[in-house]
């Protein structure tokens, strides 16, 4: 005979008594880590600091991640009471603590961007596949992206050469290398497509600079006249003014 219990339709089913639940240390610790990361993404979104790490193309992931992580934290906490909680291993707790370290680093460190230290280590920006076509370079206001694109494609180079002698107005940071003459500096700006890890650099040589007036990392606005010389672009500065670092320090192609 079968051991199955059959209930008559409409019969009242009496549930077995619920076992008492108590907090699972593993699940609570996991919820703390998830919550910390959720907090970080909310922090980035509210303060606008995501611009220091991501391009404008990808910054949408910040609020999405904040919402998902918040939901995951709430769900984890809501399911953190179990019938048979087990203690958490000390090693596991230390690992979870280490997972919160990046959150602490980002929240408590002073806002920073890539600077001149990386300038010599980054590949030059290639604008050949982006909006900076030869047509774009040939007309309208010149941007640093146009200039960088012109430095890396033959068509762009020709289009840029036709703009020689025109006025330009660029904002970037000062990069001075060992071989940079005293009356020059490189005006640089990172071009970020996705996140800072894929940053490439766009830079022009600024000449006719008062020696010693600016140092590495200073953000400046350079107004002057552009002279593309093959793959190098020179800006003869008529006015250089110190400016605050822009809210969006990286360019997005």
């Amino acid at each position, binding site marked *: 005979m079968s051991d199955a219990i059959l209930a008559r339709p409409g019969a009242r089913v009496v549930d077995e008594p619920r076992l008492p639940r108590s907090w699972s240390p*593993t699940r609570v610790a*996991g919820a703390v*880590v*998830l919550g910390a990361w959720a907090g*970080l*993404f909310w922090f980035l979104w509210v303060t606008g600091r995501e611009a220091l*790490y*991501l391009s404008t193309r*990808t910054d949408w*992931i910040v609020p999405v*991640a904040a919402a*998902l992580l918040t939901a*995951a934290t709430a*769900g*984890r906490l*809501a*399911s953190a009471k*179990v*019938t*048979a909680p*087990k*203690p*958490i*291993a*000390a*090693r*596991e*707790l*230390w*690992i*979870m*603590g*280490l*997972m919160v*370290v990046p959150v*602490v*680093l*980002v929240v*408590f*460190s002073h806002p920073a*961007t*890539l*600077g001149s*230290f*990386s300038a*010599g*280590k*980054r*590949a030059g920006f290639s604008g*050949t*596949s982006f909006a900076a076509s030869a047509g774009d370079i040939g007309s309208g206001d010149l941007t640093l992206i146009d200039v960088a694109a012109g430095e890396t*494609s033959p068509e762009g180079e020709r289009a840029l050469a036709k703009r020689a002698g025109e006025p330009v107005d660029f904002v970037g940071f000062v990069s001075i290398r060992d071989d940079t003459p005293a009356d020059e500096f490189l005006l640089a700006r990172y071009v970020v*497509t*996705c*996140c*800072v*890890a*894929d940053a*490439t650099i766009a830079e022009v040589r600024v000449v006719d600079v008062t020696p010693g007036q600016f140092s590495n990392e200073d953000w400046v606005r350079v107004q002057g006249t552009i002279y593309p010389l093959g793959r190098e672009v020179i800006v003869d500065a008529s006015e250089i003014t110190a400016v605050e670092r822009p809210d969006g320090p990286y360019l997005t*192609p």
Partner: protein
Amino acid sequence: MAQTTAQLPTIGPSRVADRRTVVGVAAMLVAVALVVSVGDPGRIAWVRTFFVIFGSLLIQALPFVMLGAFAAALVEVFVPIGVFEKLGVLPRPLQLPAAALAGLAFPICECGSVPVARRLMQRGLMPSAAVTFMLAAPVLNPVVIASTYVAFRGRSTLWTMVGGRFLLGMLVAIAVGWVVGNRTKDQLLKPNPEEEHEHLLELGRPEARWRRFFVHLGNDFLFMGRYLLLGATIAAAIQTFLPTSVLTGVAARPVISVLAMMGLAAALSLCSESDAFVAASFVQFGPAAQLGFLVFGPMVDLKLVALYAGTFRRGFARTVVLVSAVATLVGALWVGVAFG
């Protein structure tokens, strides 16, 4: 009757966390906060560069790990097992290509595909098919195809890069799946102690679906997150100290240039949804080398090797690295000869 906490003083050979451990972890976090806010190590250029790159890698990749964990938890809790068994009824020669093409339906990057593949194996999908899916999804997914198109738009090599990436990515993923062969999930997957722990917790009374969903979601995120952390640390260190110009000197040598770009892809550990833009920026390199970058990077990079090492048993990462490196090199060189 349920066991009480008092009856379970240890977890395997590990020491159980006590109040001192909690205080120690909290003290470490407070110390880090004090050092970075008061000491301001960001004044030192290389430290600042490392922090920014490390932070950006995590901030960009973690949401995708979360999405992957979300998809994996959905698969685990809500998708009937029969869906995966359907792949198994296909003729054997079609199983791996079908698994590779399934990547078209899942817009997940490489960080997210690892937990999904792990879950698929646990749900009964053939390990070789799950591995094929894991490697193919980050290359074949629609977002990656679109970003590759945008990155190479306007160049004569546009369709070589888009089509080559799709086809070569699929072939390399199938090759790795084929080498994995008939190995079982127990031979491939590392046990996750936390998961075994959770199964014990479910004894007595099965947990509600929504609870299981959130438990799996959190476990996968925490499991993958720690390896991503390790990979991001290494990748940020390399990006901070290695000038990319070092590698551009080898661009003119056919085989060396492909190997160099594959190595660079592995070192940079970029997301497959963004790497085409970086590959396109290396204008000194030909299509074969750029293709090597685009196919190899989403399958093998520093953060992925760390993820593989945490997810799979010893030897699996070596298999993936070797087979995908050889297949990518041969395929990219052929593309270079045929279309370069």
